């Protein structure tokens, strides 16, 4: 089977996120970058599916040229092909992004045939828009279900498990289909030695991004108000146990 996974390059923040002075971006001067977590799991799920059923996993990213790094990471963990759709900023708005991705997928499919599955992350870790996958799927004329915590192929049908307050919901989609994947669906593997070699050699296909600017306009990023905290140190080491239990009693934990 043929699977395409859309991934996004995002900063890997530590304890604090800083903003550039113009308020337009996260200050990444001291940050590394990673594949957005839900999408990292989408790559792993796709790789597990082709290990079982055979086929190819293509990773696609719309982002700065540096996002080639994330494509190579995906190949080092089992993806077989990579497509970069370069843009000159770090982010496009969701409508524009979806339009560009759907167009590139259409072009790839014109030469390679249809992908059985197109996977997205449920939402990106940084902008949290919750909509690019849905918009792209509609443009491709394919069904999409988000929130997948399980994805298997049974009798040629994509079976999706999704958690809700009440339990687990099962969805069944005829392929070709799109799925929005959530972290927890699997535990992504680490790059293998073979994978690392493949990631160095893989040819990165470049496609051109095009899409009309959408109606969501970023004015400025802001830091949320800091939670005022004067940490009360209850003690050092095991001697603090008594003070801890005092606190737990005070909070009514034993009532």
């Amino acid at each position, binding site marked *: 089977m043929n699977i395409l996974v859309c991934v996004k390059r995002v900063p890997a923040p530590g304890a604090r996120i800083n903003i550039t002075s113009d308020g337009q971006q996260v200050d990444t001067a001291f940050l590394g970058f990673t594949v957005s977590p839900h999408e990292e799991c989408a790559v792993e799920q796709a790789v597990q599916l082709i290990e079982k059923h055979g086929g190819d996993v293509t990773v696609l990213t719309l982002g700065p040229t540096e996002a080639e790094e994330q494509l190579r990471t995906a190949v080092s963990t089992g993806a077989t092909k990579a497509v970069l759709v370069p843009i000159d900023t770090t982010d496009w708005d969701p409508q524009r992004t979806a339009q560009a991705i759907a167009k590139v997928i259409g072009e790839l499919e014109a030469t390679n045939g249809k992908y059985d599955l197109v996977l997205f992350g449920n*939402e990106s870790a940084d902008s949290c828009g919750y909509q690019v996958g*849905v918009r792209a799927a509609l443009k491709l004329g394919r069904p999409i279900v988000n929130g997948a915590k399980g994805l298997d192929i049974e009798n040629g049908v994509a079976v999706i498990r999704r958690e809700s307050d009440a339990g687990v919901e099962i969805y069944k989609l*005829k392929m070709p289909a799109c799925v929005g994947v959530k972290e927890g669906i699997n535990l992504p593997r680490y790059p293998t030695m073979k994978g690392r070699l493949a990631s160095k050699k893989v040819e990165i296909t470049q496609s051109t991004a095009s899409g009309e600017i959408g109606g969501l306009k970023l*004015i400025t990023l802001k830091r949320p108000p800091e939670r005022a905290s004067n940490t009360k140190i*209850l003690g050092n080491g095991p001697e603090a146990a008594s003070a801890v239990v005092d606190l737990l009693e005070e909070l009514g934990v034993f009532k």
Partner: protein
Amino acid sequence: MTVLAVVEHDRGTITDASLGVLTAARNLAKQMGAKFEALTIGANADALSEVISKYGATTVHQAHNAMLTDFGPEAWGESIAQVVRKTSPQVVISSGTERGHEIIAQAAARLDLPAAMNCLEFDKDFNGTQPLKVVRARWGGSLMEETEIDAPIKLVTLANHIVEGAEEPTSSTIAVFEVDLDDSVKQTFVQDRVERVAGVTLATSPVVVSGGRGVGSAEAFAPLEELAGLLNGVVGCSRAVTNNGWRNHTDQVGQTGTRIAPDIYIACGISGAIQHWVGAMASKNILAINIDAQANIVTKAGYAVIGDLHVVVPAISAEIRKRHPK
């Protein structure tokens, strides 16, 4: 002018998040001098009109179609799109939940309109005629963004727990709307369900004892399990723990795990990176146990013990046994 609240429900049971959405929609409508209307999807939600009238909607649109017996993101999104085309509201608002985000995204895609998810604030000067400025959550809430929605109809979701439901009863008019759904939306309905066994979960437990990288191994969680047991709580963990395969992802507290709000959160050997903090910050009290007094979680927590969790946690359990023998 109209503000339309899309009411999230599960086979006729309204969600808590929807009550906040109804309240926020009513407040926004008042500010704009607009009508406040609501939409329920599926005949199994018709009875909710009674609840909705308590929140002040003057009209409740009831979207009907024989297909609408359970949740289906595409059919729900299409239903919203058709009601929006017919009623032309200025603002459409639903809940900042998995379903809420999904159906608003579906409706926005079908209407080719922008959508802003997880809104925290709406422009106080918005009167319905200009672009709508909102503040929305990014990075799971550790960063905010001021954004302008420039479109004739503004679609948004309201971040969870931002607005409390407050009643303001009125008598609502019911408007049944027959939705035209074709087979293209048929296959994304829920096909089957596995109900959860009732009990305390990570999301609802009043006490959570959580471990991070500092715990060191899967086996080393045993003392945390013991402490959680003594406090009738549950065990959670950070993303580092899940990534190491020490615990299942269902135990993960954080941006991509579970958001929790217990009475007390005991964070053992957790540094408190952004990803984790945004999942734990709603806790009423936080006790950090960490060898590093400068760890991010220690500086943010209300209470801290500086020391090795491997000796501190068993000492706390021993003290509890001494004072509260069972």
